[in-house]
Structure formats: structure tokens, C-alpha cells
């Protein structure tokens, strides 16, 4: 991945979370506090703005900056988590611009280290794990195919959170009542990978 593609990805995510802000917020209102859409829109808009005045010629630098901006602007649970994800991904790419699969894995690890969620806890991890796995599996077929596979896996992972009872984040406070709603963070993870696939 090069700097231009990384910028395009961040811009595409920003457009997507803006377009889906109401949907994300509604999902979060059902089992959380109704701010996920606003949080991500604020964060990715800030990332796009930060990148506009940021001279960087590598995807690693672009995505690290994106992560740092998310940490500084989002707050809540998703800010540090997505921020750490992009920071870890960026750092990996700074070392090796072609190690996108490894970068995604590093991002996932950072999310799990910070948030301590396991698959099945009804969080963004439920979309992130299958997406990272699918990307790695399809990586030999090239970026476009791998991104498409990851997007599909993330969407499936997000959809699969619906019946689950949450064990992490605000939704866990609802106990059994959290079942029957799709997790907002898993849903935004699916949007992030859909944006990646859209670049191909």
C-alpha cells in the first residue's frame, strides 16, 4: 500500500461513516449510548483534515497519523480501539509497506490488548478477527481479492453479532437484552473493510 491509497482509504471511511452515521447511532442507541456514528464521523473527519496538511510519502505514516488523530479526537471506547488499530497497522507498514496482512494482524492485536475482548463478546473484534483472517488467507491472490474477502468476512462477522449477548462495552450492561441487536462497533468495522475493498 502506498500513501495515496492509504489516504484514499481514510477518505473513503470518512465518507462511509458520515453516510452511515445515523445507522450506527441508532444501533448504539439500542444497546449503548447512541453516539457511535457521531464519534466516528468526528474522528475520521478530523483524520482527513489532519492528513490534508500532513506531508507523508508512505502509507505507514498516513495510517499512523490517522490512528493518532482518532485517539485524540474520538474518545469513548471506539476512539482508543480504532486509534490503536490504525497506529499499529501504520507502524507495521512503516517497517514494510507490503506487510498489509501483518499490519492488520498487528492492529487486531492492539485492539485485543487494549480492550481485552474475545470473539463472541459482541464487539468490533467479532468483525475484525474474520476480516483479518480472510485477508491473510486471500493475500496470495493480491490486494483487491484479499480486501474483498476481508470485507465480506467483516460484514458476516458483524451480522453474526446480532444474536449474541454482549460481554464487553456498554452493551454488556443490558445482559440478555443486548441479544437481537447488531453491534455498532462490528458494523463500523465492516464499513472500514468495505471501504478498503472499494479501493481495489
Amino acid at each position, binding site marked *: 500500500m502506498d500513501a495515496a491509497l492509504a489516504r484514499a482509504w481514510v477518505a473513503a471511511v470518512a465518507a462511509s461513516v458520515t453516510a452511515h452515521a445515523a445507522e450506527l447511532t441508532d444501533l448504539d442507541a439500542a444497546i449503548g449510548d447512541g453516539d457511535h456514528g*457521531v464519534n466516528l464521523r468526528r474522528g475520521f473527519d478530523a483524520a482527513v483534515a489532519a492528513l490534508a496538511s500532513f506531508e507523508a510519502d508512505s502509507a505507514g505514516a498516513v495510517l499512523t497519523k490517522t490512528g493518532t488523530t482518532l485517539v485524540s479526537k474520538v474518545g469513548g471506547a471506539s476512539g*482508543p480501539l480504532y486509534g490503536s488499530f490504525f497506529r499499529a497497522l501504520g507502524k507495521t507498514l512503516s517497517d514494510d509497506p507490503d506487510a498489509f496482512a501483518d499490519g492488520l494482524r498487528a492492529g487486531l492485536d492492539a485492539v485485543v490488548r487494549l480492550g481485552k475482548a474475545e470473539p463472541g463478546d459482541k464487539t468490533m473484534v467479532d468483525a475484525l478477527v474474520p476480516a483479518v483472517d480472510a485477508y491473510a488467507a486471500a493475500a496470495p491472490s493480491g490486494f483487491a481479492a484479499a480486501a474483498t474477502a476481508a470485507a465480506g468476512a467483516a460484514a458476516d462477522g458483524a451480522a453474526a453479532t446480532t444474536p449474541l449477548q454482549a460481554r464487553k*462495552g456498554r452493551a454488556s450492561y443490558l445482559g440478555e437484552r443486548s441479544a437481537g441487536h447488531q453491534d455498532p462497533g462490528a458494523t463500523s468495522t465492516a464499513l472500514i473493510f468495505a471501504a478498503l475493498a472499494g479501493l481495489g
Partner: protein
Amino acid sequence: MKKFINDPDNVVREALAGMAAAHPELRVDLDEQIIVRADAPRPGKVGIVSGGGSGHEPLHGGFVGPGMLDAACPGEIFTSPVPDQILAATRAVDGGAGVVHIVKNYTGDVMNFELAAEDAETEVESVLVDDDVAVDGSTWTAGRRGTGATLLVEKIAGALAEEGAPLAAVAAVARDVNARSASFAIALTAGTTPAAGKPGFDLPEDEIEVGVGIHGEPGRAREKLRPARELAARIVEPVLAAKPLEPGSEVIVLVNGLGGTPLLELYVMFDEISRLLAAAGVRIARSLVGNYVTSLDMAGMSLTVCRVDDELLRLWDAPVRTAGLRWGA
């Protein structure tokens, strides 16, 4: 949605500007988005920083001042502050004796304060507040939420820090107050965040949410609306079950409005609750009735009970001078 706002995205910032205008005795930094005691940092004094999402006013900004917090960092509405804010606040109050972070136990708050503490240039003790017994503390949840007890923790830790106690002691008393406290809340209606523009959930005219938090989320169960007497029992029971009190125990009681409930009704509830506690042999040493830890315009109330000893009562009674809580000064 009907609110006194200009733009949902600017509410927090504009409210901060309002606080700055209304409270010249505070230092409000609109860029860092923090509220700081005018005389901070005080050399040798442990600094106390708290913060969390906005929408709970007067918590936390209304509790900045002598005898309570040294700084507050308000996040967006119902969204924890970001590490930059927390760091700025930590720096602003660092008098060389270390800083206590009082953190309500929400995933977002915990992570953001954690990131800030990692980068802090001073010694930081993080104190988690998790008093809401509506949520069980098992591994099946993110743990109990921090709600009404936050006020007690901030007041009592603030008093001890004001006396010049060292970092470990201030953190210890804060943790002690939290451990001695239990809270439980009921909502009659949902609140409306400016961003969402509509109530967080719909409730029929004869139903209530029981075991709610302070972020507009639905509670543990939906139940029928009942008379105040029965609601008081519904709320006292889990609190006493979680923190059993021996007859003769002395407690501080906070009957807290969630924002949309008239004070008159809070006093009706206090009447019922005080009877129930008396029947359990518990003595109310001090009490507070009002809107302190709110959830925007949610109609509802929470009960916090904290078992105290003479030393905690002394610290509770110590002078405090903030916008939202003031006595003896």
C-alpha cells in the same frame, strides 16, 4: 428535539464557554477542553482529576474547586474524554505530589485514562468507581458502572488531598469510599442527546426502566410504573443486598435526580427511602437530595448509599467550594 443549543456538535464547547463566563473563579481552557481550579497547581498538593462524557452536569466540571477536584476534562456528550485532555488536566494540576485520576468504570473512560496515564510526566494513581449494583461485576460484563458514588469519592478524596495527604492515602480513601458505596437507578423516561435528536428509547406511559445507567441506555429490565413507596423498595433492596449493612451502620445517602425529575419528587422518594433504611436499622448520618449526577433530561432517580465512619464523615463535612457543591466556604 427541543433544546437550548446552537449546533449539536458545539454544545459541549459552548457550555464550557458558559461555565467560564459564569465562574471567574475557575480557569476554563477552551482549547484543551478542561476546567481547572484557579490556583492549580498547588505545590505539594496531590492533584485530583476526573472527567468523563458530558451530559452529567454538574458532574464533573461543577465539582472543581477547593476541597474537591483540581480539574475536570469533559468529553463529548456521553463520550469519554480523549487522552490529550486528560494529559492537559494532569499537567495543569501537578504540584509535584502526584495526581489521582478518578475514573468511572466504562470501557471508553478506562482506556482513555489509561492511555493518558501512560504518557503522564508525573506519578498517577487511577481510581476506578464502580458502584452501580444493577450490573453484576462478573466476567460477563464490562463490570459495574460508575454512577452516583463518584460524587462521594470526589468529595472525600478532595478533602483529604486539600489537607496535604500523600498520593497513596488520597487514592486509598477514594477506593475505600467506592468500596463502601452501592447505587441503583430507575428511569421514567429516556433522555435525548443533541446528536441523536430523539429519546434513547421509547417507554410506554405505564412502564419504567429499572437498573439504568447515566448514558441514556436502557436498563436491566422494563417494569410497570408503581407508586413511589414501591419504587423506593425496588431501589433499596438491591443496594442493601449488594452491600449488606449491619443495624446501627451510619451512611451517607444521595438521592440523585437524573435531570428531568422535579426536586419535589426526589423528596418524596427520600421520605420513602429514609423510612426503609430506618426499618433496616441504618442511620442516615448525612444526605444529599438533588440533581448531581445526571443523564441529560432523563426523568428518573438513583440512590447511592455509602457506609461511613467518623473519619469519612469528617472529610465529607470539610469545606468545599465548587459550582455544584458548596459548604463551609
